[in-house]
């Protein structure tokens, strides 16, 4: 399956993804309603985008007493059926990453569903920090970056000698 890979080293906290997600959920730009959340810490200049990784062993799904959480056969997304959600919030508690939110207006939990296979957060990420990629090599960009760094270091080293 494909997941949304996040690269904090490329994120600029422009919040396009949060707006795009909030818009899909609510038709408005209230960022607190986005399923992807970006934390920004000016002192460290750290930008941290976080969204559901659709765990292979999804604890939220296992813990849900109402059986409202299931895996979409087509996209592999772990989805909440809001018609069955009891609003007990056990899934929020179970998620180790805090990637499940609660919609207090409707009294149901809410989370990323990969927009049915075309995640809007990725389409709106102009820095390229988000990518919708096959999970088996979702973080290839990290390897590539390390590779480039080593090449650069070797080049400089050779230059010095």
């Amino acid at each position, binding site marked *: 399956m494909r997941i949304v890979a996040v690269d904090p080293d490329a994120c600029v906290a422009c919040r396009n993804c949060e707006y795009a997600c909030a818009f899909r959920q609510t038709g408005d730009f209230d960022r607190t309603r986005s399923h992807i959340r970006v934390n920004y810490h000016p002192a460290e*200049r750290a930008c941290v985008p976080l969204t559901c990784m659709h765990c292979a062993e999804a604890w939220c799904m296992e813990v849900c007493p109402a059986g409202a959480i299931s895996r979409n056969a087509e996209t592999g997304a772990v989805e909440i059926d809001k018609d069955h959600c009891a609003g007990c919030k056990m899934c929020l508690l179970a998620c180790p990453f805090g990637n499940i939110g609660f919609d207090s207006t409707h009294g149901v939990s809410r989370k990323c569903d990969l927009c049915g296979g075309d995640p809007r957060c990725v389409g709106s990420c*102009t820095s390229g920090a988000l990518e919708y990629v096959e999970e088996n090599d979702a973080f290839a960009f990290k390897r590539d970056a390390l590779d480039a760094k080593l090449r650069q270091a070797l080049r400089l080293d050779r230059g010095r000698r």
Partner: protein
Amino acid sequence: MSTERDVQQTLCRMCDDRCGIDVHLEDGRMVDIVGNKAHVWNKGRLCVKARAAIDMAYHPDRLLAPLKRTADGWQEIPLAQALDEIAARLTQIKERDGARSVSVWKGEAIGFGQQEDIARRFIHAFGSPNYLSNDSMCYAARYFGYKLVDGAWPVADLENARVIVMWGANPPHAHPNMTQYITAARRKGAKLVVVDPRLSAIARRADVHAQPHPGTDGALAWGLMRELIRTGGYDREFVERHTVGFPELSAYAATFTPEMVEQETGVPAATVIELAALMAESAPRVSMYVGNGLEHHENGVNNIRAVVSLDALVGAVDREGGNRFVQPAPLRTLTLYDDVPLEHLGPLGADRFPVLYDLRQECHTMTAMGAILEGDPYPLRAMVLTGANPLLTNPNTERVRQAFESLDLLVVRELFMTETASLAHYVLPAASFLERSELHTHAKHQAVTLTRRVCDFPDVQDEYQFWHDLAHRLDMGAYFPWDDETALNRWLLEPSGLTLEELEAHPEGVTYSPLAPPPLERGPFMTSSGKVEFASRYLKDLGYDELPVYKSPEYRGTPDDEYPFVLMTGARKLLYLHSRFRNIPRFRTAVPGPEVEMHPDDARALGVAEGDTVTVTSRIGNVTIPVHVVSPEEIRPGELQITHGWSEANVNLLTHDDRFDPISGFPLMKSVEVRVTKVGAGE
């Protein structure tokens, strides 16, 4: 009955990035916009402004009928009547005060290229040299910086760089999709340097964030040049073979020691040394990009020339990973400058700012205000303005208002009843970018795209139709022989050998000539000497310094107790572009209103907290605005920022239309001396 679905591929023009978009329609009505994954520029990614184009096009406040100002307020009139009356008034004014008393003002919202040239053609055919636009305070100063040194403005080859330097530019907010090119380079190991008085969005990813005081970038550039020369880290061969003025340059650079640069700019001496070393070791793959941040200062053009000179010192001119000269698209042009010279008619501003007219055929909007109000240097009585809102975007709003109120004829083409439109005699409904078809060039990729008419409203003319219909009423129809924009597009495209049908079949862009590898044998450059010009003979002959001499901004001189803060204006924000999009409700949810960005130490000293209201006062005027206390890293104490375009707190009530960069004529807008008082604390 099933709904009919359709996808039309075209370009977004909510900003000038012009990203490829797929517009989804249901029964002819736009319902969604997503990125065109194949488009050369954005590769499927879009900022959230793009989808809002639908909201803009179908906005309940859209103007859909021509309006005439009468004693009893606005009156709807038929389009033909409006055009007849406007033509008659223009003719009267021309007969009375001469053709040059009439002007055209083309706004940013209309775009550039083809649309700009149609407006230029119209006013030229009318016999007036007075083409006005936002370019007399945006873009042109950077164009001069590059043109004067390199002979042309190259494009930054970001993705192949080893070090990228952003000077006063914040792509995530200003050119969102440029950011992905920076990411691509960084993933290949490039270092990112951001020079900006604010910790901007792109500075969040910088390896080095150099934070100069506003308007002092030139001193930093000179300091880097001094270091490169002193350490021998510059490209000797390039300098010897391809430049003029190096001896003068290196003599002048000598005083810019790292310590002096630190004193002047606030950038630590060690950072100056570190940056110069980084550039030397990465040369020639040093890709620098200059943003609008350097333009609105008293010494803007020379600061930019100093930055551009750095490119030559590291041999990055027209080099892979540096910057690249691009071939213009082989299209016909619409302007008439070669056929009918108008310079003898005294284009507004051309006497004071000869470079502005000579290199860009651009008149000076601030001078135009004097022509309207005081008849200086001669009366300007009529204006046809399209897609601009100078009442929010030009400096010294009060004077702009007085000027526009006193015109004998003001015609405004707009989507909405803006501050400027509300002063017009006639307001004509304008077409958005989704309601016209035009050719676009993506210089970086040497590609052209044809946009599509995705929707239509009766009585809303596209730009071409408007100028065409007015021209035919003014006896200048011969200059507008094409029946509609498709016929015009076909004519423009002819010399390229491409056809409209080909472009229609390739909305992702068609390459008109592949970007060739950089030439091994360099030059001649398109300057008068054929070389890269550290020293400009052209400027010297006009009475300017030949070197990009550094002048310290006035506010850096003796501290002024009356105006102790320095205010930057116009920092870009993601959701709003200049004065536009404040009427998109969800943008308001995200960013509800204007604010002045302030360092926590200053807030403490003033006794204000986040959200409190202050009055900011300059020598020009004052504005009352809520405070946003930023993190201490994000701005320096004593420095403030207010973004323009808010009618609730219009920062251009404070900006100067009486202090200019002497070369470009650009107004001082990013280093304005101000004081701040807490509202309720008595002022």
